[in-house]
């Protein structure tokens, strides 16, 4: 048993280890009340920088307070394994760094990375002109360097992936911006952090192309009333316009600084 679970590829820590204990932990839902130093409809400030990974075709780094992700795009390259397809294939892979969460993140233990990958894939796949890339694969690799809630990861991942694809010069219908919301009772808070998500009844993630005013992905989990979900989507769509402006600004300034 011990033999089969032993990971031969990596440096393994001690057999038994414990995450650090903090004083302010386990505040019993206080996260919802206390953990907010911004307005309910404000999102965290975004730092977005395209073109950081020099080996990749295109890349982007995004930081929204404690959510930090790096995204690299490779391709379009020839799909070797699949059968002939008239359209291109988009392949999204998400990995959590071992130090990205409070508790050490062992590789391949759970399916959260794949769940995030599917959500990001869904958000950006309809924005790419895949019919222009027959027989080809576009690879998007996302590394979560610091994680502050899955919802924030999916939203930031979609933003970073779309920026990296634009940086890679891959034809797409429009830039995809994304925003998350959490609901508790009648209160809606945008761009929740991990503690707020834990205390919330439900969450909504919206991805859209503000330039075309079309929605690419809506992802709702938990208990949210129909009215609440619609209200969340409306608020998120408004914030996506702001996010889109950040993306446009970062792409234009990175292009201006290119030789």
């Amino acid at each position: 048993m011990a033999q089969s679970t032993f990971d031969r590829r990596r440096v393994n820590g001690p057999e038994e280890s414990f995450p650090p204990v903090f004083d302010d932990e386990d505040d019993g839902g206080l996260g919802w009340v206390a953990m907010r130093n911004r307005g309910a409809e404000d999102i965290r400030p975004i730092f977005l920088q395209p073109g950081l990974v020099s080996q990749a075709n295109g890349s982007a780094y995004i930081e929204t307070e404690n959510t930090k992700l790096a995204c690299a795009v490779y391709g379009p390259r020839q799909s070797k394994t699949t059968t002939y397809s008239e359209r291109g294939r988009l392949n999204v892979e998400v990995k959590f760094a071992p130090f990205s969460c409070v508790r050490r993140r062992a590789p391949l233990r759970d399916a959260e990375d794949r769940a995030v990958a599917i959500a990001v894939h869904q958000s950006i796949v309809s924005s790419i002109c895949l019919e222009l890339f027959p027989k080809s694969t576009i690879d998007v690799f996302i590394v979560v360097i610091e994680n502050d809630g899955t919802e924030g990861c999916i939203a930031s991942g979609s933003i970073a992936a779309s920026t990296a694809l634009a940086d890679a010069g891959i034809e797409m219908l429009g830039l995809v911006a994304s925003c998350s919301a959490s609901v508790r009772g009648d209160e809606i808070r945008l761009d929740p952090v991990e503690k707020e998500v834990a205390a919330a009844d439900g969450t909504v993630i919206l991805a859209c192309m503000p330039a075309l005013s079309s929605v690419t992905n809506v992802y709702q989990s938990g208990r949210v009333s129909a009215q609440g979900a619609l209200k969340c989507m409306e608020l998120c769509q408004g914030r996506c316009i702001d996010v889109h402006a950040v993306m446009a600004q970062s792409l234009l300034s990175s292009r201006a600084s290119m030789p």
Partner: protein
Amino acid sequence: MTSETLLPGQPVALPLGPSPTLGAGLYAKDGHVRASLVGVPRYEGPTLAISRARPHPPTTNSVVLGVVTRLSPLQATVAISVVDGLPLPAGEEFTGVIRSQDVRATEKDKVRIGECFRGGDVIKGTVISLGDARSYYITTARNDLGVIFATSEAGATMEPVSWQAMRCPRTGRIEKRKCAKPENL
């Protein structure tokens, strides 16, 4: 026509009158012309396009350069490394094949692949079809297409002496190749 940089999804301001044909990097949707790449649209004759400085997969009629990697009596396998003048990143070559009937335009049934190509030759060709799941179909059936660089058995770079022979400058031996006509002749 402004010369500002456009982002994907941004509408393109078009002058009044007949609309231009759209090239790469632009698309029309719901009556609006929008950009699909980051860049400045420019006219190339009647076509309005955002120039693509990034390498892209081959399409039909693409001019490709590649290295012959494998020979069989029916076809030569080529690793495509340059598409339309843009080099692909290392290790991301596309695979193409030159079938024996696509080597030259005349006497197709007399073609012997071994007398037209050798492993390691650099060839210039055009893509005739996206082919099957594995490879693109390439043709060299034109005067300006064929082997553009080859080394002899002695290891020296050979020079073409006719459209189907090359000579080694070191030993003077003639080797058979389907040569491309040099551009400056």
